[in-house]
């Protein structure tokens, strides 16, 4: 997804772009996650700024007529609290978000059913986030890539960088060398290996997530709905299983319930505990789901950096090489603003969102310190 968005913005800025991937389109994490475009779960800071800019860009893409092709839905999110304590924490959190430009409106318990008629009774209250939206990620990547007009070389693995005089000259792939003045490393979870080719370090780690998919249903769930506990999960560095079900309908019918978060390396062994937890949490939000069939589940690995921020910007060692990776559980949402930032940096222009917090060399300078 991130690579497609970079290609889109670079092409729009006038570059001629070639996209190389060892697999198919959306063959990495982008084809194994969900398509929530959330601001509601983000605390004020650089990631939220990037997310807010991205929301604008997603709306622009939709206005250009691209949205339908990837099922863009500006449906808004509803965060609910089961206890008074959760609700007051949520209230505090929302207040700080509002100062950063997020639209958040408190919904009293008795009004929640206007938003979600099938929500469980006994919820303490909630917040409505009209900016939250949704896309179908694989289609978004494929359509954006196609709209970019970039040349696409699938099934080619990058094996090396062509560097001379400290500047990049292209990439070596299993299907020959591709000359280029600029190279963008948007290899997600695998971008650490590409960074190493330049002698740089991106300590990328996988964070596993499972998503449950139900039978097709009518639009019984209107928005993205999750419990307030999700907010603390996202910001956590704990390796153990965490999950608080985000429940959302899709235009094609199935309801998606996700996602769990575990740091277990690249292990694909199904965890029936994680699946059970997701199911239980979804049923807590929407009791009618108890009797609905789960048809499948899938698992993906979020590309994770220790400080929960993506690396976006120039490489410190090799001129012309840029990194755009490590978006963890928000790479779909953050992709357009990331692409825009990369295009501006390549052109040497001022970025819309401040790029400093995303500097990739924060990891290698960190390492240099004893």
């Amino acid at each position: 997804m991130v690579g497609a968005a970079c290609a889109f913005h670079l092409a729009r800025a006038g570059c001629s772009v070639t996209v190389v991937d060892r697999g198919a389109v959306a063959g990495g994490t982008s084809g194994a996650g969900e398509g929530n475009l959330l601001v509601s779960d983000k605390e004020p800071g650089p990631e939220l700024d990037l997310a807010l800019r991205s929301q604008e860009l997603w709306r622009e893409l939709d206005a250009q007529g691209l949205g339908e092709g990837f099922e863009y839905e500006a449906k808004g999110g509803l965060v609910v609290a089961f206890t008074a304590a959760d609700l007051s924490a949520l209230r505090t959190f929302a207040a700080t978000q509002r100062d950063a430009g997020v639209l958040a409106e408190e919904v009293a318990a008795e009004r929640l059913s206007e938003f979600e008629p099938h929500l469980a009774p006994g919820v303490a209250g909630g917040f409505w986030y009209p900016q939250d939206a949704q896309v179908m990620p694989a289609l978004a990547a494929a359509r954006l890539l196609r709209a970019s007009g970039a040349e696409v070389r699938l099934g080619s693995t990058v094996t090396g960088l062509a560097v001379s005089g400290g500047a990049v000259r292209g990439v070596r792939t299993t299907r020959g060398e591709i000359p280029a003045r600029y190279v963008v490393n948007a290899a997600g979870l695998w971008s650490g290996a590409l960074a190493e080719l330049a002698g740089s370090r991106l300590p990328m780690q996988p964070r596993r997530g499972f998503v449950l998919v139900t039978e097709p249903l009518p639009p019984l769930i209107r928005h993205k709905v999750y419990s307030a506990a999700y907010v603390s999960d996202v910001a956590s560095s704990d390796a153990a299983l965490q999950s608080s079900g985000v429940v959302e309908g899709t235009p094609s019918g199935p309801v998606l319930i996700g996602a769990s978060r575990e740091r277990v390396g690249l292990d694909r062994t199904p965890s029936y505990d994680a699946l059970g937890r997701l199911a239980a949490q979804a049923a807590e939000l929407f009791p009618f789901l108890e009797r609905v069939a789960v048809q499948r589940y899938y698992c993906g690995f979020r590309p994770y950096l220790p400080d929960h921020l993506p690396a976006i910007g120039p490489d410190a060692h090799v001129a012309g090489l840029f990194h755009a990776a490590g978006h963890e559980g928000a790479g779909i949402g953050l992709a357009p603003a990331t692409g825009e930032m990369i295009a501006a940096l390549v052109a040497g222009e001022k970025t819309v969102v401040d790029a400093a917090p995303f500097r990739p060399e924060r990891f290698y300078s960190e390492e240099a310190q004893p």
Partner: protein
Amino acid sequence: MTAVADTVAESAAGNRYDVAVIGAGPAGMAAAAAAAENGLHVALIEGGRQLGGQYFRHPAPGLNEPWASQLHHGWSRFETLATRVETSSRIDVLFEHQVWAVEAGFNILTDRGPIAAAHVVLATGSYERVVPFPGWDLPGVFTAGGAQALLKGNLVLPGRRVVVAGTGPLLLPVAASLSVAGAKVLGLFEANHIRGYAKHPLPLLKNPAKLLEGADFARQFLRARVPLRSGLMVVEAQGTDALEAVIVARPDGTHRRRIACDALAVGYGLAPQIDLALTLGCEHKLLTDGTVALRVDTNQRTSLPGCYAVGETAGIAGVESALVEGEIAGLAVAAGVAKSRNGSPAALRRRRDRLRAFADVLRARHPVPPAWRDHLAPDTLVCRCEEVPARAVAEAVEDLGATDARTVKLLTRAGMGWCQGRVCGYAVACLARRDPTEPPNPADLLAAAKRPLARPVPLGVLAEQDRRNK
């Protein structure tokens, strides 16, 4: 046999079976009987309501027709086997338990709760493979085995004037049964060109004891006088709201002929149902007809210790080999538990090897003719569940960068519906190849056999897993 009503209580009480056999078809029944006769405590787990699986599918008590007994051949063998299962005090038969996953160790996860067992024998059989053609989604089009199952289980015909088509040995008993039950079988069209097919449709008729249905079947089949043709396939089904006619032609589209009919029974061979095993991590093998089966050793052991596979799960080979393999696995599990060095008798294994060799020959003669692709119209549904037309699959492959079946699925939803790709998986694997002359990618064929949940599970059942943990 002990019928167990509440298995959740059973396993919660710490009851662990020596072996859980999944599937009560011929293979599973034989495995359960052999294991129990050798002292093991067995759970025979079956999603349906009766013993017998596909081959020995039979009407519920009370249903009858004068011709009903002619639908089955070798029925006494079923009765013997059923008696072995039903009279054993060491076998708990768990009907209406849908297994949706197996956890290593083993924990058999069913819609009625988990069942613990030290060993597991996978006997989940197969399902039918069909490739799309215009009109195949019309009511009145059945899979060949589906028509057979309807008849064997309900004593109901799929139609009065029936065409049987596709490829493979199963078409013959299907045509024979339909005819016995009073349908007019307008023709049996075997898509592969097999010399002498009309006279000796299979080595099976010359060699009756070897496979499938046996000698009385061969006689019955010849008596039915079904017109047999080889080298012809159904390239289109016609009708507005239900089937009215089919177009039969050579794979290259020549020799088109319209046949008015009210039912079509079509099948392009069977595919092993091995999703449980693949999710568990058992090794697989790719067979010559593009189906994927479990790799087993001479004692039916899969690559995963304690896990055995018998019958169609180890590759389609018919009822005889299902029965023999069940015995072998049951004896081998028992020998393993008893720490005895002799597993299963060599004579049984030799018999199994002969049956398997014969099945390999048959399989090689009945591939899906690659020309099926040429007959698709842009609006022909490839995925029936999600109503994905061939046009959308072509767009994904040609314009959107889908170079494998997984990406076709992601971009079009083909294979994401209720059946989870059981019906369209093979077709999508073929269509993911831009170049129609290239055979499907083995990884895509594997993907078509794999699905994380073997059955849809009510969300509440999954949630129960979590509540139990607390």
